């Protein structure tokens, strides 16, 4: 036996049938491969083994060693027994059936059998298995245990402890998958009950998954409770429209309303998970606050109109601008949350009807090129989402993956648990930092310097090639202009030793993976960052394992459909700047609440006010829509047939769950087609499938599909052919790390509003930058000035005060009060207390926020979520290329202490 390779398969006999399975397979899975379903409760293929419920008892026999008498088979739990050669698994042996009957009788002793009023009734494993395997009647006549019923574990998940059969699926999920062990069984035996410490509400953004996992109705959804019976629901396969991961979902509807969202299994995308935003934020569709039809601005403001009036009015106004100033005076913004069909229609509408190159879905974008990796012949995203599972190392730059691509964070966690070393670079601690092998806490805005530092470290000690020789990176040394690690480290504000260690980790890893945040792909230095990231991939020997995320549910689809600046076209940020300066005369805004999402609220307001014509497609009467001349009432993603393309480039079909009959809402592609017709240049579409046909024919990324739509799993496509491994030399990035950054002179000297803030918009815009991360001198200067000036980092939280979230009050109630996160040293210096109110003053004004005081942001930096609070943090910011400096001042109000304490405890 010695020296022989382990067998590729072992043969086991399941109910008399031989089946070959991989070694190490669990008996329960071997049975499944043989087509036999062994009943289970605690076993779940995505979770660790518990062996808690004993439901899967089978009579299992092992082969005896040669020459020995046969061993009698015995009852074993199929879910914890691994196969061996010659094993017999008898799933319906009399002893197994008797054991199972006993288990069911035992489980039902304390189960209330309130199936008629239980949400799980009709889709309940306990119910099904009781019918299939249970005794005809139980012998237990004593009083059942009484326990908590209808107890809120959080505003989203409700517990009925009496129904619980203690299978530990929920606690294992929370501990193992999102790594948030906030739920556990307290006490023991008869008294066991599911609780959180101190009965605090669960905070995880993945907690909804335990509702799916629960096999007995103990955990139910607060928003779906008592709303429907599973047999009364209609189902539509769709894709979640709330982030670019593209989780596959099933939309369950009743009476043409979505009653719940469930994850749909797609092992390449979301496995079987979905985040709480995707699961719970669906009530917007049936909200009475929706726009029910188009609006047109008259002398007395906006008023409802017919579609004909709206089309005529929009056509007349757009035609007037076009006639007076040309198509180039019209800017088109938005489209990241549309279907590909809508995006394609919008791209055609802009090019053929409006005849403008100024089209961009990337709100706030400062660069025209949408794909920072295009110089390398790469797509912006070049690996499948599942690549994170088998990576040797993962580098995260400029992204809080937990909030930006939530379910992909679960995949990254899985990869890290399987051995991937996580290198997290960011100006503040994020959820990913908890699993980080190296943390690179760089100065805000200095991602480029950090990446150059990593490249320089690779030049110092190059990765080894397959033959053990150091790779020749002399080209890379030239590409970064001979910058040294220490020089870059000073600019990044990161210890050079840590940079070297992180680079060594990446260099030594098989299949390393790089994820870069979407914001870095639209920032002023996106080109240089793209160069650095592309060079990093090549230096590591994995040129196509580098990825830029994208914003919006269908950002990638919008990019490929052409909702990016054409030749001579302006990026979205510049479109707004030019509109505010009066150079762009008309704005066509599709599904984008610019006043909340453009990084400079005042500038966005100025642009909308100054533009002669503003046309908006919207679901809700947002503040942006209220400033428009014509508002078209559009349908949302749950109400559309079509396709979307996820961040990784997966084309997926969606089917409308809600049909807009009875309402006066129209899909965006149809609005565009009809408006084009009103302008005398029809796109000629009368069904979504016609747009799909055009899309597949016209967009190069989809050419490989030859006009055929994919099945339910979608299909991963590429806009750019991925080059062979190793391909190409290094490209020189247009970056420089100056010795005296001008940020030091301009902003370090003043602590309140930096001088640039008062420049007119056009001047600011013209001043467009070379990339300059804030220097150590600037940071220290600002702090030394003593006024409390800190660099502000802002990014969206996974769930915020968004219009769509506001329609689900249970979810909205889990959103924290708008806060600013301050380092405890800065807080002490500035007299800021945790939970107290703080005035955050930026270049364009001030907002009040609740202080969170901790060590998650380094001294000299503060963090404020973009999508919390009213007004948003963009109200105090100027659209500029530099990291904003803000001043913090505690707000003293009567009774503030009490308020502060209450808020501090809230999250």
């Amino acid at each position: 036996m010695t020296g022989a390779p382990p067998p590729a398969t072992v043969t086991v006999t399941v109910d008399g049938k031989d089946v070959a399975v991989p070694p190490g397979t669990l008996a329960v899975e071997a049975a499944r491969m043989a087509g036999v379903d062994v009943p289970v409760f605690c076993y779940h293929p995505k979770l660790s083994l518990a062996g808690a419920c004993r439901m899967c008892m089978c009579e299992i026999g092992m082969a005896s060693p040669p020459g020995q008498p046969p061993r009698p088979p015995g009852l074993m739990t199929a879910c914890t027994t691994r196969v061996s050669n010659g094993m017999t698994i008898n799933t319906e042996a009399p002893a197994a059936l008797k054991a199972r009957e006993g288990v069911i009788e035992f489980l039902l002793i304390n189960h209330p059998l309130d199936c008629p009023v239980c949400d799980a009734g009709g889709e309940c494993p306990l119910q099904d298995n009781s019918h299939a395997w249970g005794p005809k009647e139980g012998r237990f006549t004593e009083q059942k245990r009484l326990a908590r019923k209808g107890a809120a574990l959080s505003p989203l998940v409700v517990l009925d402890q009496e129904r619980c059969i203690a299978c530990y699926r929920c606690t294992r999920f929370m501990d193992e998958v999102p790594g948030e062990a906030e739920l556990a069984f307290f006490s023991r035996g008869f008294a066991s009950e599911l609780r959180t410490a101190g009965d605090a509400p669960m905070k995880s953004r993945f907690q909804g998954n335990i509702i799916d996992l629960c096999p007995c109705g103990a955990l139910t959804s607060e928003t779906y409770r008592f709303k429907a019976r599973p047999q009364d629901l209609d189902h539509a396969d769709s894709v979640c429209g709330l982030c670019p991961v593209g989780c596959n979902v099933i939309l369950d509807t009743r009476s043409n309303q979505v009653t719940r969202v469930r994850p749909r299994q797609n092992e390449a995308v979301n496995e079987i998970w979905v985040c709480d935003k995707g699961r719970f934020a669906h009530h917007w569709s049936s909200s009475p606050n929706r726009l029910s039809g188009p609006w047109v601005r008259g002398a007395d403001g906006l008023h409802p109109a017919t579609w004909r009036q709206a089309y005529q009015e929009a056509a007349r106004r757009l035609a007037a601008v076009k006639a007076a100033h040309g198509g180039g005076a019209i800017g088109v913004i938005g489209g990241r949350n549309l279907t590909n069909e809508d995006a394609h229609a919008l791209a055609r509408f802009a090019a053929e009807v409006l005849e403008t190159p100024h089209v961009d879905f990337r709100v706030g974008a400062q660069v025209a090129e949408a794909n920072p990796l295009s110089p390398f012949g790469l797509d912006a995203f070049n690996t499948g989402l599942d690549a994170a599972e088998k990576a040797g190392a993962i580098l995260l730059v400029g992204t809080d993956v937990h909030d930006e691509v939530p379910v992909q964070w679960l995949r990254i966690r899985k990869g890290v648990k399987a051995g991937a070393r996580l290198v997290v670079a960011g100006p503040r601690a994020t959820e990913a930092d908890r699993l980080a092998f190296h943390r690179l806490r760089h100065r805000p805005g200095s991602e480029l310097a950090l990446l150059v530092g990593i490249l320089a470290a690779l030049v110092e000690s190059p990765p080894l090639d397959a033959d053990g020789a150091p790779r020749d990176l002399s080209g890379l040394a030239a590409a970064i202009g001979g910058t040294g690690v220490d020089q870059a480290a000073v600019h990044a504000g990161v210890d050079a030793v840590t940079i070297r260690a992180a680079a060594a980790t990446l260099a030594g890893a098989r299949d390393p993976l790089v994820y870069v945040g979407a914001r870095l792909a639209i920032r002023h230095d996106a080109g240089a960052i793209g160069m650095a990231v592309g060079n990093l991939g090549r230096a590591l020997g994995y040129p196509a394992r580098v990825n830029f995320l994208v914003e919006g549910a269908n950002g990638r689809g919008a990019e490929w459909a052409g909702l990016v600046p054409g030749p001579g076209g302006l990026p979205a940020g510049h479109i707004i700047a030019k509109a505010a300066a009066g150079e762009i005369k008309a704005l066509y805004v599709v599904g984008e609440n610019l006043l909340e999402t453009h990084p400079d609220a005042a500038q966005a307001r100025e642009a909308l006010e100054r533009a002669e014509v503003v046309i908006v497609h919207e679901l809700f009467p947002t503040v942006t829509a209220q400033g428009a001349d014509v508002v078209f009432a559009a349908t949302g993603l749950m109400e559309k047939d079509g396709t979307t393309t996820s961040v990784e480039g997966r084309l997926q079909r969606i089917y409308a769950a809600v049909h807009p009959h009875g309402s006066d809402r129209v899909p965006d592609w149809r609005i565009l087609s009809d408006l084009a017709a009103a302008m005398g240049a029809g796109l000629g579409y009368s069904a979504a499938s016609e747009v799909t046909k055009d899309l597949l024919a016209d967009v190069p990324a989809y050419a490989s599909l030859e006009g055929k739509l994919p099945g339910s799993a979608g299909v991963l496509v590429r806009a750019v052919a991925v080059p062979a491994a190793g391909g190409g030399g290094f490209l020189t990035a247009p970056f420089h790390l100056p010795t005296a950054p001008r940020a030091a002179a301009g902003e370090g000297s003043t602590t309140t509003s930096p001088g640039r803030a008062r420049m007119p918009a056009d001047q600011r815009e013209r001043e467009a930058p070379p990339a300059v991360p804030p220097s150590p001198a600037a940071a220290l200067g600002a702090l030394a000035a003593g006024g409390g000036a800190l660099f502000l980092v802002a990014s969206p939280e996974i769930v915020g005060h968004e219009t769509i979230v506001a329609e689900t009050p249970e979810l909205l109630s889990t959103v924290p009060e708008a806060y600013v996160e301050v380092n405890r040293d800065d807080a002490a210096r500035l007299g800021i207390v945790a939970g107290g109110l703080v005035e955050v003053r930026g270049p364009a004004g001030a907002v009040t926020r609740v202080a969170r005081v901790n060590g998650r942001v380094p001294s000299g930096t503060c963090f404020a979520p973009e999508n919390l609070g009213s007004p948003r943090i963009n109200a105090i910011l100027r659209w500029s290329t530099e990291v904003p400096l803000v001043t913090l001042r505690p707000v003293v109000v009567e009774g503030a202490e009490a308020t502060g304490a209450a808020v501090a405890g809230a999250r």
Partner: protein
Amino acid sequence: MALSQAARTRIVDEFIPRYPSKRAALMPALWLAQEEAGWLANETFEEIGELLDLHVTDVAAVASFYVMFHRRPVGELLIEVCENPSCYLAGSDATHARICERLGLPAGHGHGMQSTADGKYSVRPTECLAACDYAPVVQVNLRFHGPVRADDVEAFLDDPARFSIEGKPSFSMVAGPQALAVDGWEAGAPEDARSQGGSRASG
């Protein structure tokens, strides 16, 4: 109720290195915290969780598994009356009832713990203490006392030490295995108490 600096240091420098995983140091850490404060507050769970990289719920759930970890303040004297067969046959239910009565606590409170308003006494029934030869056994702050019959309760409350089982202490988990080496294990067992307990139970 925060952990003392000494306790934190001991957890980090002594308990954590003792085991292959940080989580394994949880039990002695909890015990140490309880020895300091008398009971375990949620805040303590958080502090221990931070030291051991555990979620506060994990810490609290482990503590909840063991009745000897107190999640509420406990009186200066924690009186635990064995209710298992040997002691029950020796009349421990009457002992328990009498103790409650003398302390002004409602009797028949099931398995729960009751405390006097002045914070001096807490009383609860307990499972077998493995000292059946002193039945009915009463444990006072983890020290065996017995036999304590119903008629003895006044004397017992007056001066519990009189009923102490000399030389047969319980041990501290924190102190480690050396505490198990007990001196005078047999010396302190009063013969007469044993025989009296037996005869009283049968009569």
